[in-house]
C-alpha cells in the first residue's frame, strides 16, 4: 500500500505533495446524481409500496403501512402477467442468444476484415434508431392488412390475413428484435478478441470443428455470453414499450402494468408494489441462473479433470 502511494505520487509530479482533496472526490457529483435520481426514487417506490390509495382523488397515502398491496399484486388477475412476463423474458433472452451467437461469430471470424467495420456499424444503426420507432415499424409490418401479411398470403404461406398483433407472440417477436443488438455487441467483442491461433492449434491437435467450438471457442466466449444475457434479460423483463405497442390485452407485461397503475389507475401504492416485485423477480431469476451456471461449470470442470487424470499420456 505504501509503495502504491509513492508510485502514485511520483506520477503526480515533482515536489512534496500539497494537501488536497481525496482521490474519490471527483466522483462526488456523479454520486450525488446517482443518489438523487436513482437511490432516492427507488427507496421512495419501496416506501410507497407499503401504502394504499385512500380515495379516487388521491394517488398515495402512507399513514398506514401494510403488505396488502403485495397480496393484491399476487392476486389471480396480475399473477398471470408476472408469469407471462417471466416466460417472455426467458424465451426472449434465449432466442437473442441463439440468434446473436452465430451472427456475432460470423461477423467476428468469417467476414473478411475489410467488411467487418462497415457491417458492425450497420448493426449499430438499428440500436441507435429510436426504440419506439422500431416498435411502431413492427406495428405496421404485423397489421392484418399490412405488408408482411400481404406477402405471406401472396406466397401462399398464409390462407388468411396475419393475426399476430395484440398477442403474446407479437410481444415476443418485438422484444427479441429490440434487444438483439445488446446481445450481439458483447458476443462480438468476446469472439473478436479470440486469437485465431487458438482455433488453429485446436485443429492441429486433432479436434474437429464441433469439438473446437465446444472446448475452445465457447468457454473463452463465456464472459461475452454472460454480459449479453444480463444486458438483455434485465431491461427486457422491465420493458413496457414493446408490450404497450404490440401486446394489447393478451400480451401484457409487468412493466406495462406498473405504468398503467401510475398513469391510468392512479394507484401509486399498487404500482410501487408491482415494481418492487418486478425488481425482486429480476434479481431472483438472475441469481437462480447464476447458481445453475456455476453448478454446470463445476460439473464440467470435474468431468474434465477426471478425464485428464484418468488417461495419462
Amino acid at each position, binding site marked *: 500500500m505504501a509503495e502504491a502511494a509513492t*508510485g502514485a505520487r511520483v506520477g503526480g509530479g515533482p515536489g512534496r505533495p500539497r494537501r488536497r482533496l481525496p482521490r474519490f472526490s471527483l466522483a462526488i*457529483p456523479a454520486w450525488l446524481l446517482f443518489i438523487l435520481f436513482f437511490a432516492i426514487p427507488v427507496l421512495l417506490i419501496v416506501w410507497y409500496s407499503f401504502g394504499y390509495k385512500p380515495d379516487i382523488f388521491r394517488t398515495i397515502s402512507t399513514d398506514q403501512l401494510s403488505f396488502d398491496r403485495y397480496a393484491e399484486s399476487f392476486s389471480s388477475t396480475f399473477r398471470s402477467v408476472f408469469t407471462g412476463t417471466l416466460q417472455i423474458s426467458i424465451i426472449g433472452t434465449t432466442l437473442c442468444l441463439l440468434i446473436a451467437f452465430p451472427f456475432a461469430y460470423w461477423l467476428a471470424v468469417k467476414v473478411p476484415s475489410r467488411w467487418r467495420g462497415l457491417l458492425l456499424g450497420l448493426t449499430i444503426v438499428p440500436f441507435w*434508431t429510436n426504440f419506439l420507432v422500431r416498435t411502431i415499424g413492427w406495428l*405496421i*409490418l404485423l397489421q392484418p392488412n399490412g405488408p408482411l401479411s400481404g406477402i405471406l398470403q401472396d406466397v401462399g404461406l398464409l390462407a388468411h390475413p396475419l393475426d399476430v398483433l395484440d398477442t403474446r407472440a407479437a410481444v415476443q417477436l418485438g422484444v427479441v428484435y429490440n434487444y438483439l443488438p445488446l446481445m450481439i455487441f458483447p458476443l462480438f467483442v468476446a469472439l473478436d478478441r479470440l486469437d485465431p491461433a487458438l482455433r488453429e492449434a485446436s485443429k492441429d491437435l486433432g479436434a474437429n470443428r464441433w469439438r473446437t467450438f465446444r472446448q475452445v471457442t465457447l468457454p473463452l466466449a463465456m464472459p461475452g455470453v454472460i454480459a449479453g444475457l444480463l444486458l438483455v434479460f434485465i431491461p427486457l423483463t422491465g420493458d413496457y414499450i414493446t408490450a404497450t405497442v404490440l401486446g394489447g390485452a393478451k400480451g401484457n407485461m409487468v412493466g406495462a402494468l406498473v405504468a398503467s397503475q401510475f398513469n391510468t389507475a392512479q394507484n401509486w401504492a399498487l404500482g410501487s408494489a408491482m415494481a418492487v416485485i418486478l425488481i425482486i423477480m429480476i434479481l431472483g431469476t438472475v441469481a437462480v441462473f447464476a447458481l445453475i451456471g456455476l453448478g454446470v461449470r463445476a460439473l464440467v470442470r470435474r468431468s474434465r479433470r477426471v478425464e485428464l487424470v484418468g488417461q495419462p499420456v
Partner: protein
Amino acid sequence: MSAASARVRPPRDVVNGLLDAWGILVFVFLFLPIVIIVIYSFNDNRALIVWREFGIAPYRDAIDNPTIRGAIFTSLRAAAGASVIATVLGSLAGIALALVSAVLLAIEPEPAAADTAASLPGISRS
C-alpha cells in the same frame, strides 16, 4: 495451411454457407421495421397503415406543424444538455475511478511503456 494457399479464399463449405446466410437474414431482420418506417413516411394518406400513394405531404405537414417543430427543438435541447452533463460528470467519475483503482490495485506506471518512450529519439530518461 501453407503461405501460398493462405492467400486463396477458403473453400466454400456448408457451415460457412449457413453462417453467411444467417448473417444476411439477421441483417434483414434488423433493418426490416426501419425500412418499413421510412417507406411509410412517404405514404400520402392520413391513416398510418393503409398505403395510398407516394408523396412528401407528411413531411410538409410535419414541418408546418408548430407543435412538432417545438417538440423537435425540445428534443435537441434536452439531448445536448444531457450529453454535456453526462460527459462532465462521467469524465470526472471516470478519472476518480481510475485514480482510486490505481491505488487499490497498486498499479505502477508501466515500466515497459517508460522504456519504450525513453528509447524514442528526442526523449531521454531524466
